[in-house]
C-alpha cells in the first residue's frame, strides 16, 4: 500500500494536476449548478436573442435568448450522467462476462465472442445513431445504447487478461486447495485482471462524452431544450457561418476540457499501474 502511494506521488505531475483540477471543476458544476448558474438553463427570452458575451451574459445568449453560461454549467450534469452511467453499466456487465468467457472455453463463450465481433464490426457512431433513433431519443436511451456498445471492449480486455492468468501456478494452487470456480474467478483472477480495465474506464468516459455530443449534434440524441453540450454546438452551427461564434464555441470548449480531463486521468492511472508506459509529462 505504501509503495502504491509512493508510486502515485512520483507520477503526479503537471498533466495529472490539470486532469484532477478539471475533474474538480466539473464536480463543482454538477453539485452547485443552481447556485452558480446566473440564469435558468431552459427559460427562453426572445427579447435578448443572440447577444454577444457581455457583463450580463458572460458567454452570450443563443437564438432563443437562453443564457449560454448557465446552459453550459447545467449541461455538465446531463453529459456526465450519460457518459459515466453508460460506462459503469458496461463495466458491470462486461467484466463478469469477460471473466466467464475467458475462464470457461466452450461453444457458448465462442458464441458470445462472435456477437462482440459483430457489434464491433460497425462504426460505433453509425450503430449508435441507428439504435438511439430506434429506441427513441431519450436521455436514458442514449446511455443504454452507449453502454451496450462499450460492453465488448471491457469484456475483451478482461478476457485477454484471464486467458494469460488462468495458466499461472497460483491459480493451479488455488484449485488444488479446493477453491470453487467462482472463488477462483472473483477472488484470484479478477483482482489481477482489473488494471487495464480501470485505465479503460477513464478513456471510455471521454469517448462516451464525444459520442453523446455527436449524436445530439446531428439531432439523433437528446432534444431541446435539455441543456447538452453537443446539442448547443448544433444550435450554434448555422450562426457560425454568419459570424456568431459564441453560441457554438463555449459548449465545444466544455466538451474538449471534459474529454481532456478523462484522457489525462486515464494516462495517470496507466502511469501509476504500469511503470513501462509512455506518458505525456
Amino acid at each position: 500500500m505504501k509503495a502504491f502511494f509512493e508510486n502515485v506521488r512520483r507520477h503526479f505531475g503537471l498533466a495529472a494536476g490539470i486532469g484532477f483540477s478539471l475533474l474538480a471543476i466539473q464536480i463543482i458544476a454538477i453539485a452547485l449548478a443552481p447556485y452558480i448558474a446566473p440564469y435558468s438553463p431552459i427559460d427562453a427570452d426572445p427579447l435578448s436573442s443572440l447577444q454577444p458575451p457581455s457583463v450580463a451574459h458572460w458567454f452570450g445568449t443563443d437564438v432563443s435568448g437562453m443564457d449560454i453560461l448557465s446552459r453550459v454549467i447545467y449541461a455538465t450534469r446531463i453529459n456526465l450522467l450519460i457518459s459515466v452511467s453508460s460506462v459503469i453499466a458496461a463495466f458491470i456487465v462486461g467484466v463478469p462476462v469477460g471473466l466467464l468467457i475467458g475462464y470457461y472455453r466452450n461453444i457458448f463463450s465462442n458464441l458470445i465472442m462472435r456477437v462482440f465481433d459483430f457489434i464491433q464490426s460497425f462504426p460505433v457512431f453509425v450503430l449508435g445513431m441507428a439504435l438511439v433513433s430506434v429506441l427513441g431519443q431519450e436521455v436514458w436511451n442514449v446511455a443504454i445504447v452507449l453502454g451496450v456498445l462499450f460492453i465488448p471492449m471491457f469484456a475483451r480486455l478482461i478476457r485477454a487478461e484471464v486467458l494469460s492468468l488462468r495458466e499461472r501456478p497460483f491459480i493451479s494452487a488455488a484449485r488444488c486447495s479446493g477453491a470453487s470456480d467462482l472463488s477462483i474467478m472473483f477472488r484470484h483472477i479478477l483482482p489481477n485482471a482489473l488494471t487495464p480495465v480501470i485505465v479503460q474506464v477513464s478513456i471510455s468516459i471521454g469517448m462516451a462524452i464525444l459520442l453523446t455530443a455527436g449524436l445530439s449534434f446531428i439531432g439523433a440524441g437528446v432534444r431541446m431544450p435539455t441543456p447538452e453540450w453537443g446539442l448547443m454546438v448544433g444550435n450554434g452551427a448555422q450562426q457560425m457561418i454568419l459570424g456568431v461564434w459564441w453560441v457554438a464555441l463555449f459548449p465545444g470548449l466544455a466538451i474538449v476540457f471534459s474529454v481532456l480531463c478523462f484522457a489525462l486521468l486515464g494516462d495517470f492511472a496507466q502511469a501509476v499501474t504500469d511503470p513501462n508506459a509512455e506518458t505525456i509529462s
Partner: protein
Amino acid sequence: MFGVMFATFFLIRLLPGDPALLLLGNMATPEAIVSLRERLGLNDSIWVQFVRYLDNVAHGDLGTSIFTSNPVLQDLLERAPATLELICWAMLATVIIGVAVAVTAVVRRGGAVDRASRIYGLAAGAIPDFWVALLLIYFLFYLLGVAPAPFGRIDALLPPPNRITGFYIIDSLLTGNWDAFISSAGRLVLPVLTLTIVNAGALMKLTRTVFGDVYRSDFIRHARASGLPESVIVRSALRNSLPPIITLVGFLFGFLLGAAVLVETLFAWGGLGQYAVQAVVNSDYPALQGFVLVAAAFILLVYMTVDILYEFADPRIKV
C-alpha cells in the same frame, strides 16, 4: 455479413409503430392498412419475412425510402462517391501528416516537433470533429474569406463534371473541366482538413511508438554503424513499422465513415452520411437500414484489404 443482415433486419422489426401506418399516414382507412399489410407480407411469420428480406438483398433490393420514395440502393449508390471522395482524401492527408510528424518527432527527439506532437496527440483525441469544422468555417470562411462557403461539393452555379468515377476532382481532370476542378478541390479543403485534424492524432501517436521502437532497435543501429545514409535508415525502419500502422488505418476508415456523418451534415455534402441523418430525422427506416448495411459491408471490405496489404508489408505473414 449474414450476421449483419440478421441484425439490421431485427433492429427494424423492433421498431415501435406499424410500417403500413407509417407509409400511408394518419388519414389511412383501416381497410387500406389491412390490405397494405397483406401486400407487404407483414402478416407472415417473422422467419418467412426474414428469408424474403435476405432474398431481396441478394437481388440488390434494399427496399424503398419513405422520404425520397426512390429505391434505397439507388439513393445510396448516387451518394456513395461523394462520401468516398471525402474519406479517401481525408485518409491520404491523415497518413501523410500523421506519419511525417511522427517520423520527425522520433528522428529529432526532444525537438520542437517532438514536443508539439505530444501536446497535439493528447488534444486531438479530445476535440469533437463537428466543433473543429465550425471553428474552421468561422476562421477560414467568415473571418479570412480564404475558404469557399460550406455548401456542397461544388459551386451551385457550376454543373458537376460528367460522371466517370463519381469523384468530382478526378472526373473534372479527365474531362478537362478546370472550373469544376478548382471549385470542387476548394470545397474539399475544409471538410478534409477537419477530418485530418481529428484523425491524424491517433495515427501519429501509434506511429511514434512503433517507429520509435524500430528506430532504436539493433538492426537499425547496425545499419547506422555500417554507414548507411539517414534517409535509407528511416525508410527501412518505416517499412518495418508498417503492419500496425496499416491495421490502424483500416480501423480509422470505419471511424471516418462515422465522422463523415457529422461533417457532411455541416458542409451540406450530399453523401451517405447526410442521407443517414435525414433518414434518422424523418424516421425513414428502410433508408437507415440500407445505410447501416452498406456501412458494415464497407468496413468488411476495408478489413479484407488490410489483411491483403499485410502480406505485402511483411512477407513473413501468410494470409
